């Protein structure tokens, strides 16, 4: 079976795009990814497009906009893991031998789709009693503080770190570093989480070009990064109440990915993880086995997760700093990891990075621990 390689990546500026729609943004990202791969756009054989609130056939609108209409195109919805799932589907098409060059796109024009706190689907029984996504994560944060003694100031260091990283990322939604005081004094959303603990409502898109060994030989590839694993799981039903301070879904998906890649958490040089809220970053990195359960807040305090630290987490700025256009997020994480592994990110470069992980997790359904989770491992 062929390996899967990423040769081209592209992404729009993340932020507010009042004069564009999701298809415009997706088209911009796709064209950049094709140009970055150095291939003729006509070499692309199929495409997958992840988005959540953009309506029917957004992917086809993107292809029409760039002159690629006619390709097999699959729209993918998997909540916040939609874009990452599009990459997985593209990689499966390569591994299956069906195609040699496939595009994966993620896009979202969230500012025209949503205002305020993201909530579960209205049919969800917990939404009916007032569950909001910030509320659910706030409850996890409070429980984590109770169990592991994390302080509010320690938690605030995560947005401080991620917005400092975002300030070094020209494509990030937020460009201004913040302090612990800024986090603590920002508007309360769901105690103990404040506005700076939350990822913003962002427009943006990203795209990657994946290819087979055969295509890589044809197009040449000293800039290629190998997609060593692209794992996907859906959450299992909780028959009995489970801990809300650990993520079996993230853990299980990560185990699938590590096994497939033949790589362990100790080999990882950087990770982009789904920090939709500050507490989420804690739960993700511990679920990925990158830090011991209960240890991450103190590790952040020691600078271990900084770009200059032992294991940088969210060097792009993460969802909190770079922004969170739902469908675009998972693809943008992979774009960041690829650029880091190629040494192309200027003053947020992690020296000598060889192995990177991208983790997404999204959606909520009552009775299950989480809806969709992806873990991708990239190696150069």
């Amino acid at each position, binding site marked *: 079976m062929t390996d899967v390689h990423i040769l081209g990546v592209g992404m729009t500026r993340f932020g507010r795009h009042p004069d564009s729609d999701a298809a415009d943004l997706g088209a911009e990202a796709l064209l950049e990814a094709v140009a970055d791969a150095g291939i003729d756009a006509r070499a692309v054989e199929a495409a997958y497009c992840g988005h959540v609130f953009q309506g029917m056939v957004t992917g086809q609108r993107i292809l029409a906009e760039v002159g690629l209409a006619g390709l097999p195109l699959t729209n993918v919805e998997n909540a916040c893991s939609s874009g990452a799932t599009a990459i997985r589907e593209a990689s499966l098409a390569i591994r299956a031998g069906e195609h040699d060059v496939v595009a994966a796109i993620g896009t979202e024009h969230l500012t025209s789709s949503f205002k*305020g*706190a993201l*909530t579960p689907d209205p049919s969800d029984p*917990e939404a*009916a*009693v*007032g*569950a*909001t996504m*910030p*509320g659910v994560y*706030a*409850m*996890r944060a*409070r*429980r984590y503080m*109770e169990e592991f003694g994390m302080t509010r100031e320690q938690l605030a260091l995560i947005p401080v770190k991620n917005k400092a990283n975002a300030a070094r990322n020209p494509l990030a939604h937020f460009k201004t570093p913040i302090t612990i005081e800024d986090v603590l004094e920002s*508007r*309360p*959303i*769901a*105690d*103990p*989480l404040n506005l700076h603990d939350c990822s913003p409502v962002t427009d943006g898109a990203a795209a990657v070009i994946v290819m087979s060994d055969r295509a890589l030989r044809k197009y040449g590839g000293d800039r290629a990064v190998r997609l060593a694993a692209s794992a996907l799981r859906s959450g299992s039903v*909780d028959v*009995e*109440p489970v801990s*809300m301070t650990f993520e079996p879904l993230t853990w299980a998906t990560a185990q699938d990915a590590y096994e497939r890649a033949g790589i362990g958490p100790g080999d990882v040089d950087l990770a982009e993880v789904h920090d939709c809220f500050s507490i989420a970053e804690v739960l993700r990195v511990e679920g990925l086995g990158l830090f011991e359960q209960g240890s991450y807040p103190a590790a952040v305090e020691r600078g271990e997760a900084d770009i200059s630290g032992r294991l940088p987490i969210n060097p792009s700025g993460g969802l909190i700093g770079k922004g969170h256009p739902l469908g675009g997020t998972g693809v943008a994480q992979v774009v960041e990891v690829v650029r880091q592994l190629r040494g192309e990110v200027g003053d947020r470069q992690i020296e000598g990075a060889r192995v990177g992980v991208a983790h997404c997790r999204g959606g909520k359904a009552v009775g299950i621990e989480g809806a969709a989770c992806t873990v991708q491992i990239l190696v150069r």
Partner: protein
Amino acid sequence: MGRDLETIRFSTTGTLYTFSIVRQSTPEFEVPYALGYVDFSEGVRIMGQITGCDFEDMRIGMSLALSLEPFGEDDEGNPLTGYRFQPCEVEGD
């Protein structure tokens, strides 16, 4: 696997696993409100709003009892009844 379920009756008191004071929500909910997960001895955890308790007095592990209360209206204006949780004295097992 399957969809054959049976209905069981379980206790109406439980303990608070965790909670938040929600200060931003969808338009149908008046903020702020207390939202929590309550564990029941039968091995069930249920999310609901908590009423009858000052926000500052809420603690993980506190005892709560189920209460049925008005819960807004449906699309046709009919009153809805929903469940909430209220602080209670522990009555022992």
